[in-house]
């Protein structure tokens, strides 16, 4: 019995040392994670109050005798946007937000976008970025089909914008002129890239 007690004490001592070593390794891993690259686009989750949609934007039962058609539930100057895209980067390289219609059966040049100056969180408040929007000043502009067009180029205050990223808000408008009645779809692709 006595001998057994000694063995137990040794075992306790051995178990303590590896725990110290493990803690040191963990701290080192955390330091590397902080420095890792972050470059991504993600949707602002629709909240109804500011951003209404994300992956699906409906234009239902559209009256084509109107020349200015917004998505369901939207009105001019209602203070909302259809979609919000967070663009995050810590690469310290100028980045670009591009947009294009990459699929669907909607005739060409019938879908337009409107992009206001994006915003970024500076640590205490949301401020407008100093990057370049296209067009400037903002205006309803046709989304080209089959190609991506730069609609925003990051500025000095949001080229590095982690962890919260730059929020680009986009509105859509449909031009029904010349479109026969029926059902249509357009896939709008947003690309954040460091390639101009």
């Amino acid at each position, binding site marked *: 019995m006595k001998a057994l007690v000694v063995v137990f004490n040794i075992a306790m001592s051995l178990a303590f040392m590896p725990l110290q070593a493990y803690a040191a390794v963990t701290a080192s891993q955390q330091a590397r994670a902080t420095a890792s690259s972050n470059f991504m*686009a993600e949707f602002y989750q629709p909240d109804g109050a500011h951003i209404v949609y994300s992956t699906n934007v409906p234009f239902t039962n*559209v009256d*084509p005798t109107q020349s200015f058609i917004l998505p369901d539930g939207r009105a001019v100057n209602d203070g909302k946007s259809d979609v919000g895209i967070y663009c995050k980067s810590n690469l310290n390289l100028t980045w670009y937000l591009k947009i294009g219609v990459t699929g669907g059966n909607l005739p060409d040049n019938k879908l337009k976008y409107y992009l206001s100056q994006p915003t970024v969180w500076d640590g205490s408040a949301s401020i407008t970025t100093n990057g370049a929007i296209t067009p400037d000043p903002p205006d309803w502009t046709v989304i080209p089909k089959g190609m991506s067009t730069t609609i925003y180029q990051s500025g000095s205050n949001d080229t590095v914008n982690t962890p919260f990223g730059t929020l680009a808000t986009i509105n859509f408008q449909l031009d029904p002129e010349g479109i026969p009645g029926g059902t249509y779809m357009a896939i709008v*692709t947003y690309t954040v890239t460091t390639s101009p």
Partner: protein
Amino acid sequence: MKGLKQYLTPLLICAAALVLLSGSSRAAESTKATTVAISLQNIFSMEFYTDPNIVYSTVVPFTNIDPEKSMVLADGRKDNDGKSDTAVVCRSNAGIVWYLKLHLTPAAPLTSDKVKYYIDQPYNRNTGGRADGSLTQTANWYSFSIAPTTIYTSGTQDISNLPFGTLITFNFAIAPSGLEAGKSYSAAITYTLTTTA
């Protein structure tokens, strides 16, 4: 073995450097997509157009006609006054050819040959220019038919002409010869928008 290692080491270093360089020069990219779903109502409609230069719509009066003239215009109208008696706006997004027909239903003893109409090349209200359809007959004065008769056939642009449609203007005249003094006459003019030739 040692010689082989001596040659391979620089090659491996170069290859590693190339891999690292290509990785750093490759553009970073991230994408998201939104599906925009659209359902568009079918529209096929015609309505009277109102404007200061369009004098009438449902009633066109010819009051106190001078029987010595060969052609009499509607009340308040003059030759080349820049106005029209009536106008209709035809709207369609059916994507197929449409036709505007016109006919007269005179109340006896008036006959259709006493009432004339004038139609000019219609307007594309989306562009502000002339529509690209075709008149059945060149712009001129014509007697009415008592059966619906095609007077305009839509073109490639106004087959689907929303949102503003195609504007077609009309002028009317009476040939008073043979009409009796002191009598009142009337006739109904019917405009028909159809996809049937």
